[in-house]
């Protein structure tokens, strides 16, 4: 069959059509940039997971973005890695039969959460943080999704969020075929960011606006900007601040409102600067920096909105490209509260202060890993154990005092573990930590080989930078002063 006939047969949903060895099954949906079918793998090419094939939406009346969007997807999807995107198995070029065969992600669509909305704050935070993790993973690969909406998110059984449909995506290192193709149809009306409406692409903070619109919908049960279907209705969001969630549902906690409204700021520089920070705040409500956003019960008064409206019309502001995001750094400091007199403490504090001073915005996690007593040794878990934990928490708080951090910037964690290195690495990973500061092997660890120390374990396994601190004048391995 000629490629065009094949494509027509496929789009007509003819089961049993075979494209490059993949047999078409039932049609799963018709998405923004194409049709998705369940497919069977050719013999000998079974990857061991269920497969879906996506074909472009072509034909009379289909939008041009459909084909260009599919082309973008053919460029960008193969470059993506990690659990937050469907694994790509095969693709066909636009000169023959354009298609993408990928993992049919098993899980539940985020649409199911939206249907149950309004949801409790902790559930919004949980699924929101999973989604922010997925966006962070995408942004770290220099890709902006530009069409984040419930239909494009699937949550795996292990609670990992997966992003679908890269037809509107922007890759910083690839030519942007949509750069001059975009008219009105940028992203999806209820979730699209104001700068996307102005045709600006490639700013990762646009996805955070869409994330905020989804968090709003999950927490409130309504969309922040309704369902605009006119250009004027869409332009609203260039300046308008939506009705605060607490004005509609008073039981939304202030910290969640703060996060949502900060994501929905019309000006990218007032928004969160990275998805990692949104995830961090959603997981650490006590650390959310509460501003006037958290206290509002009504949208700003007529005068304030008028001022925003006027500023949004300023041609100079419209023409100017916003400065690139300056993501906040999350810094994790490992503190050995079991040895408060250790000579390394002042050095670690000094280096921590240096690390904090280099970024305007930051989050600091102080972590003390207390070795779990071996079985049959020491008291069992109980009052004494929680007392021991509290004792370490107090020491940790005192340790962090000289850093002079406001409470919303600092969190304290005492964790019990038999494997401190693995625990620190896992904590750093799940909190998108950028830098771990910890002490070099203690004198007590000297007889052990370097590779058995906590510092070496963390350095080897961490995905971020690690600063290993040594006290000045500490004797070296041969016992000679440094």
């Amino acid at each position, binding site marked *: 069959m000629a490629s065009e006939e094949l494509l027509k047969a496929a789009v007509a949903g003819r089961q049993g059509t075979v494209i490059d060895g993949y047999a078409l099954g039932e049609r799963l949906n018709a998405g923004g940039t194409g049709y998705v079918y369940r497919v069977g793998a050719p013999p000998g090419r079974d990857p061991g997971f269920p497969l879906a094939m996506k074909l472009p939406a072509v034909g009379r009346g289909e939008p041009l973005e459909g084909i260009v969007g599919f*082309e973008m997807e053919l460029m960008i999807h193969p470059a993506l890695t990690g659990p937050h995107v469907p694994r790509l198995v095969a693709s066909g070029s636009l000169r023959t039969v354009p298609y993408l065969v990928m993992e049919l992600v098993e899980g539940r669509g985020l649409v199911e959460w939206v249907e149950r909305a309004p949801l409790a704050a902790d559930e919004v935070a949980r699924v929101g943080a999973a989604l922010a993790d997925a966006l962070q993973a995408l942004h770290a690969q220099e890709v902006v999704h530009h069409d984040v909406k419930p239909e494009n998110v699937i949550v795996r059984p292990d609670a990992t969020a997966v992003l679908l449909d890269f037809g509107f995506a922007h890759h910083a290192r*690839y*030519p942007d075929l949509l750069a001059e193709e975009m008219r009105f149809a940028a992203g999806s009306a209820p979730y699209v960011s104001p700068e996307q409406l102005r045709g600006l692409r490639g700013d990762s903070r646009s996805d955070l606006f869409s994330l905020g619109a989804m968090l709003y919908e999950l927490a409130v049960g309504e969309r922040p900007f309704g369902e605009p279907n006119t250009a004027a209705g869409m332009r609203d969001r260039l300046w308008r601040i939506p009705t605060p969630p607490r004005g509609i549902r008073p039981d939304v906690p202030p910290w969640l409102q703060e996060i949502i409204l900060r994501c929905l700021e019309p000006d990218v520089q007032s928004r969160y600067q990275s998805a990692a920070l949104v995830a961090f705040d959603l997981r650490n409500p006590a650390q959310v920096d509460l501003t006037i956003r958290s206290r509002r019960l009504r949208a700003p008064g007529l005068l304030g909105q008028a001022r925003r409206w006027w500023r949004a019309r300023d041609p100079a502001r419209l023409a100017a490209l916003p400065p690139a995001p300056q993501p906040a750094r999350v810094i994790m400091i490992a503190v050995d509260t079991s040895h408060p007199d250790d000579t390394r403490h002042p050095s670690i504090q000094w280096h921590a202060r240096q690390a904090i001073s280099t970024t305007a915005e930051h989050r600091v996690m102080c972590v003390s890993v207390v070795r779990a007593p071996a079985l049959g040794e020491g008291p069992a878990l109980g009052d004494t154990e929680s007392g021991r934990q509290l004792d370490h928490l107090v020491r940790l708080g005192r340790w962090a005092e000289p850093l002079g951090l406001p409470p919303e910037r600092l969190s304290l964690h005492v964790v019990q573990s038999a494997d401190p290195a693995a625990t620190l690495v896992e904590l750093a990973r799940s909190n998108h930590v950028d830098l771990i500061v910890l002490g070099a092997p203690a004198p007590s660890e000297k007889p052990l080989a370097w590779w058995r120390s906590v510092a070496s374990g963390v350095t080897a396994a961490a995905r971020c930078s690690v600063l290993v601190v040594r006290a000045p004048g500490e004797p070296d391995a041969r016992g000679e002063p440094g």
Partner: protein
Amino acid sequence: MPRGHNGRLVLALLADIHSNLEALQACLAHARAGGARRFALLGDLVGYGADPAGVVDVAMDLARDGAVVVRGNHDEAIEGESSYLNRSAMEAIAWTRPVLGDAQRRFLASLPLEVREPDACFAHASVHQPARWDYIDGPAAAHRCMEAAGTPYAFCGHVHDPRLYFESRPGRAVAFRPTAGTMIPVPRHRRWLAIPGSVGQPRDGDTRAAYALVDFDAERITFHRVPYDHGGVADKMERAGLPASLVYRMRRGI
């Protein structure tokens, strides 16, 4: 066409070498390590630098093995008109003429202005009226070049900064500034125009030599920057008595 390892057809694009033998050799070695088995020299083999004879000898060897070599305005100035060049460029041409032997000068004079293949067109300045030496300085000029080529790919030099243009829709080209080392998909159902940047005299503040590799089977292009001893080259130019402004540019990559 000769095929490289894995049977892939990988072509190296080398433009604006400007008598810089060290930069050319560094790029050729990098390209061969990257699987290049075919080469296209996009004009301006000579001018500015201290090794015109060495560069032309390498070009003659490559041409014998099937390389595409097109004529640049500096190559043309050796035998003909050079009054439109700026003063230091003219001084460098005057310095170059007696350094070249007869065979080398005949080779330069024999170079075509453009080379056409089924999939690609090659020219120094633009495939659109190549003898005018117009710069491809934006989407409009790029589009004229792509139209004149009529092939999926057009490869040019003359402009020393790396650029990739594509046809976004009929009648419209869009410019893209590539990042060195990134494999960029260039599917051939679209039209593309690649300007690899200058091997011998980069002007974007990065002293590394610029060139690009095209993998026709994978439909990908990778722009590269290759470090070499550019300071040594500047010293050599100074010793040869070439204009101080050219030596200064070489040291700074401007």
